[in-house]
């Protein structure tokens, strides 16, 4: 996995926030899980540097933190892109060919699900049902829902976001 495809860019403000979260939870039993949730809120993901701060702050080993961070699929070890793509692989979307949609997104961006593009513009994830089964197969980019997709349309949709950034077409 390209877990560290992008260098960690934490700010002093984020660190201060995280330390406050740790201080608030430190004495509670099972503090690790809520702290990791908030750490992910602050940083968007849980890189080594953040997990190390959590381990040091709570006085537990990095092994333990990493074990929990990799156990729950809710936690991400890779940064999220400026635009978060989420391809629905729920039952309805799946029977309508969502796997081909995901494959096309991965193909166009040159990264796998769970990863982020080197320029930080897009990250891809899959999800289970966004509640829009009538529009299957469905993909979300940030808060925007794209329904009744075919693999052919993917390139144009992505290009729209790239154009906004003034970049070259995918």
């Amino acid at each position, binding site marked *: 996995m390209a877990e560290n495809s992008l260098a960690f860019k934490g700010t002093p403000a984020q660190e201060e926030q995280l330390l406050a979260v740790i201080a608030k939870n430190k004495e509670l039993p099972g503090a690790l899980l809520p702290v990791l949730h908030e750490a992910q809120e602050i940083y968007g993901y849980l890189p080594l540097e953040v997990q190390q701060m959590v381990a040091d702050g709570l006085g537990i080993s*990095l*092994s*333990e933190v990493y074990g929990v961070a990799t156990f729950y699929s809710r936690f991400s070890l890779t940064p999220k892109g400026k635009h978060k793509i989420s391809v629905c692989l729920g039952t309805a979307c799946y029977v309508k060919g969502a796997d081909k949609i995901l494959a096309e997104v991965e193909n166009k961006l040159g990264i796998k699900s769970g990863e982020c593009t080197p320029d930080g513009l897009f990250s891809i994830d899959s999800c289970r049902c966004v509640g829009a089964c009538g529009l299957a197969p469905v993909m979300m980019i940030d808060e925007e829902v794209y329904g009744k997709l075919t693999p052919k349309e993917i390139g144009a949709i992505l290009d729209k976001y790239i154009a906004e950034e003034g970049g070259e077409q995918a």
Partner: protein
Amino acid sequence: METVNLKINNIPVEVPKGYTILQAAKQANIEIPTLCYLKDINCIGACRVCMVEAKQNGRPMRGLIAACVYPAEEGMEVFTNTPAVIKSRKTTIELLLSTHQKKCLSCVRNNHCELQKLALEYGVDEDRFASEDMTYEIDEQSPYIIRNNNKCVQCMRCVAACKNVQTVSVIGAIKRGYQVHVGSPFDKSLNDSPCVGCGQCIVSCPVGALTEKSDEERVWDAINDPEKVVMFFTAPSIKATLGECFDLPIGTNVEGKMPAAIRRLGEGVKAFNMDFTADLTIMEEANELIQRITTGGTLPMFTSCCPGWVKFVEHYYPDFIPNLSTCKSPQAMFGAVLKGYYAQKTGIDPNKMFVVSVIPCTAKKFECTRPQLRSGDGDYDDVDVALTTRELARMIKRAHIDFADLQDEDYDLPFDKASGGGVIFGATGGVLEAALRTAARTLDGEFKKVDFEEVRGPEAIREVTYEVAGIQVKVAVTSGLGNARKLLEKIKAGEADYQMVEIMACPGGCINGGGQPLQSDSVRNYMDYKALRSKALYDQDLASEFRCSDESPVIKMIYDEYFEAPGKEKSHKYLHTSYVPRGNKMT
């Protein structure tokens, strides 16, 4: 004591309240098979091998229960071998085997693998369940431990040993479900972690997923190289454990067979006695202690023979580095003596010497590579190779030496004899006791006490105050790094004022080192194998001609001929060393 009465396979037993079904069954002479359970180390009820059927109040309990964690209850009826139990265990083992790399013939654990034993007992079909092809990269980057996760059964015994016993915690379970595997954070190599190399993970592993980094081939190459003069020396604890690899009872002292076997590995191979450099360590360390006490040096002084402990201080408590005795370990001293004094005495070129230590330890493999332990202006390592007890046993087996029937032989001159103080180095408390013997005699010529039983155990942490020549000498001993951490925190908090502290990284000391013969769960769960191994050393000490290191004729010879006296210039050059802070993070 409150007890409960229950029946195991219709046999009535009365056991203390709080016993598990597993413990109660043993009382009825029924050993319920286990895999993830390891006494004092891991008790998580995860592997589902120890499942049994039970009735409570005459009614069958729902489903099978895990004997290793389920408490024995009053009136309970337990059945350990019913068809449902057998079927469940068999399926569990077959599922474990579905992802297990079944290269048993070339596996280092072949014939003493706990999974293999279970598979045979339950007549499993090892190919019943097909698995996804999952291949893990073998981590062999560290100088001491190799992890092959393709053989791992996720019992978590290594993780528990590392985290709960040693509090080092550089490995853990990663991911979930089918993808679970054990490793260091961010799937980095163990070599990138602040691992101390104690090897307690290896001796906890039921299968061949963890092994020492083998150096046997390098030793065979040297033996077969006519240019090389190969010299072995064996650590104090080896005599108490090597026999186990040849089916001798635990605690058999094989001191005489060891040199006989080593000589038979190849022509001209020498077999020296490392108990001699244990004595030498004591001469230097006792002198250092007296110096520190009388001149206001840093106290408490910590023993520095154990390389796992030394690396632990370097990683996790660098502020305590000045407390570590500057004495090299007996292994390192022997290398320096051979390539310095012995080379000079015999005229053998140190570059042609191939020095092999046999040690109970995986951390010693790292110690050999320390740049501080190179001599001849950094031309060569003082010790070329450190072999574990297991590696020496494998070499003896490959050479088809009839170990159990060997007649006793003496070690090679001039490093043949040692005192009882050198012998007990292999057990927790032994280094401190040997140091006390010599330090007390040095300070007070009339001092008669030789047996310092108070420091031997069995408490986890022993604190004793002795009065020697009007000086109050306060000492503490512990083993296992979890206990060491407790002791260090106490010292840090200013709650203790010891003069000397002995710490060995492995619980029980070297006799339970990470390089010692593997004992399966069926031994470790029911037998005090550490006590049996220690007893072999203390028995030999008691029967020794000399009990104190300073009385050994080899010690007298080497100071007369070479080092003059402890703490002199030459001994500082050859017998003392330095340490470096290492950081406690992943790199």
